[in-house]
């Protein structure tokens, strides 16, 4: 069954892609309008409009970028590989910081119903704040734009991890805890050997959601703050109204986001268990 459907779905995917690309090419392809008026004036107003790019133009642009992914033409002209490395680095750093805060705190909140109720209003209040709204405050207090974007990643990654960890820890089966207690397993050992493995799938789901959000946010944060990163690249090409570069960057953002999600997906499978 599976072997028969595999190639068929791949074929359907490719067909869909071909139809979309063909339609796109058809819509965006524009014949050169006949020149009117003064030749010098025509030259001054740009012979080639920077309208919507065709798939072919995007392919050409992509090739240009992918050919030299690590070229470094000065502080404001870096290859796409370098830009992506900056963005992924920021996300991982911010994410790691969020893990250090959210997972221990989630454990505490999950094990203590009192703490859970006490902290809940604040978590509910802070959770819906758009991470980018923190940026002006971060710039003013942290006084460093790169650290500010890492802070923004941290603050947006905390909530799903915190809530999921708390939920996972709180819903560890009573019986398992009771069994552990009869074996005189308490404290840190209980947390690490019983609660953590039991709650791991829920925690990892939270981390996966956090990573997804963090990757969404870094692009916006870098567009705002500039300097380096894939978001800066998008902003820079937007300034130049170069949409084929922007589309190329969008595709790349999608690919990297997908890879990050796949990585967490396989991690989740690794720790999941059958009851």
């Amino acid at each position, binding site marked *: 069954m599976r072997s028969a459907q595999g190639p068929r779905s791949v074929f359907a995917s490719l067909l869909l892609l071909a139809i979309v690309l063909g339609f796109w090419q058809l819509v965006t392809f524009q014949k050169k309008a006949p020149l009117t008026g003064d030749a010098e004036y025509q030259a001054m107003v740009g012979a080639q409009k920077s309208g919507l790019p065709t798939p072919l133009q995007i392919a050409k642009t992509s090739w240009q970028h992918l050919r030299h992914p690590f070229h470094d033409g000065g502080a404001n002209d870096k290859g796409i590989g370098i830009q992506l490395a900056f963005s992924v680095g920021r996300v991982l750093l911010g994410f790691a910081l969020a893990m250090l805060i959210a997972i221990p705190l989630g454990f505490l909140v999950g094990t203590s119903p009192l703490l859970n109720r006490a902290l809940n209003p604040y978590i509910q209040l802070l959770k819906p704040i758009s991470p980018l709204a923190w940026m002006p405050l971060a710039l003013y207090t942290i006084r460093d734009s790169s650290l500010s974007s890492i802070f923004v990643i941290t603050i947006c990654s905390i909530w799903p991890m915190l809530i999921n960890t708390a939920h996972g820890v709180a819903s560890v089966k009573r019986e398992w805890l009771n069994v552990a207690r009869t074996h005189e397993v308490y404290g840190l050992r209980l947390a690490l050997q019983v609660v953590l493995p039991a709650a791991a799938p829920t925690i990892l789901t939270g981390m996966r959601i956090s990573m997804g959000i963090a990757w969404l946010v870094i692009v916006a944060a870098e567009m705002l703050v500039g300097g380096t990163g894939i978001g800066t690249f998008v902003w*820079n090409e937007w300034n130049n109204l170069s949409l084929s570069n922007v589309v190329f960057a969008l595709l790349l953002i999608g690919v990297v986001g997908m890879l990050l999600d796949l990585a967490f997906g396989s991690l989740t499978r690794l720790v999941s268990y059958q009851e």
Partner: protein
Amino acid sequence: MKEHDASSEGAPSVAAESAIEHLVEVAVLRSVFPVGTTRRELLRSLGAGAVLSSLSSVFPLGAAKALAVESTGPLEKKELAIGFVPITCATPIIMADPMGFYSREGLKVSLVKTAGWALIRDKLLNREYDASHMLSPMPLAISLGVGSRQDPTYVAAIENINGQAITLHVKHKDKRDPKQWKGMKFAVPFDYSMHNLLLRYYAAEHGLDPDRDIEIRVVPPPEMVANLRAGNIDGYLGPEPFNQRAVYEEVGFIHLLSKEIWDGHPCCAFGVREEFIKQNPNTFAALFRAIARATAFAHKEENRKQIAQAIAPANYLNQPVPVLEQVLTGRFADGLGQIRNVPGRADFDPFPWQSMAVWILTQLKRWGYVKGELDYRQVAEKVFLATEARKRMVDLGMSVPKENYARHTIMGKTFDPQQPEAYLSSFSLSGGADG
């Protein structure tokens, strides 16, 4: 004594310093007695010491020596980060890099492209930048603590004069009279910008209240064309190349050059915090020389095409060369089918006139950004370092104005910097921007 490059690297020893002093003496002697034989005869008959001491009574030899030594002292800081917004106003700051004016002073400068003016302000105040391209009203506002935390910041030099324009969407081709602009939405790059002040002035002179009859919003310069195309705004008074770029994309036309509002108006400035100058006087002097040389280079008409080529790549402005060429040469398509020829459309002049600072302050007060009593001259003289700039420009052999104040003519109306309050009360339209 035109250049001091050779000795600008490393710490000059005592011997080097006395050598410089000797050079200054010789230079002064040579300029007083240009004919070699006369000079030598005089020195022989009277003795060098006697000649010099009698000379020093009429010529401030000590000051000349101090200046020369000061500007060649060891650099306190060699690696600098300087911010810029990708617009043609930043030309001197940018061109000093490829022209080697920074490296000639022993400086290693990294130029950092920045997304907007609020970020420039924050990064300068956060000490991420040692100095920065700024809008000339910004250091005034920051020094006064308006729209920012207060931090003494100076205008070491003006970057560029003129070179801005009012661009309107092509659908407004028949609305050339500002009286027809009621209800339209305009963008300016920042509240504390010449763009905002000039647009307000222009609108008010045509009887439009800029706070009620039109809407003025802040849009970072690079995003102006995209917003104009999307129809979010009807027009803008923005920096180049984004006016010409709107023409290039056939989404806008140039309604008016800022030169036609005030010929010679300042636009962007080279801003430095007080703390940086105090801690790094020699580095600052070296930086000033690099910027002043680059400004003089950019001022020359014959260099403009070369500049357009140099600042176009992704590392700097990331713009098509033809757009930059039209901006810098002043021969451009206006978006209405005409080619206009306006030399001086964009120009570069480093001298920070304090009268310009007074004008900016009157307008900030006029529109309610600055409230209460204001000692115009005191603030202007503190923030616009005209005297220092003159001193250093003379060292470089550049011509400088004798005064720090001048009268300016804006839309046919004369501004007298000695009478700021009278000027302010001469306007029938003024308002309360939420400053």
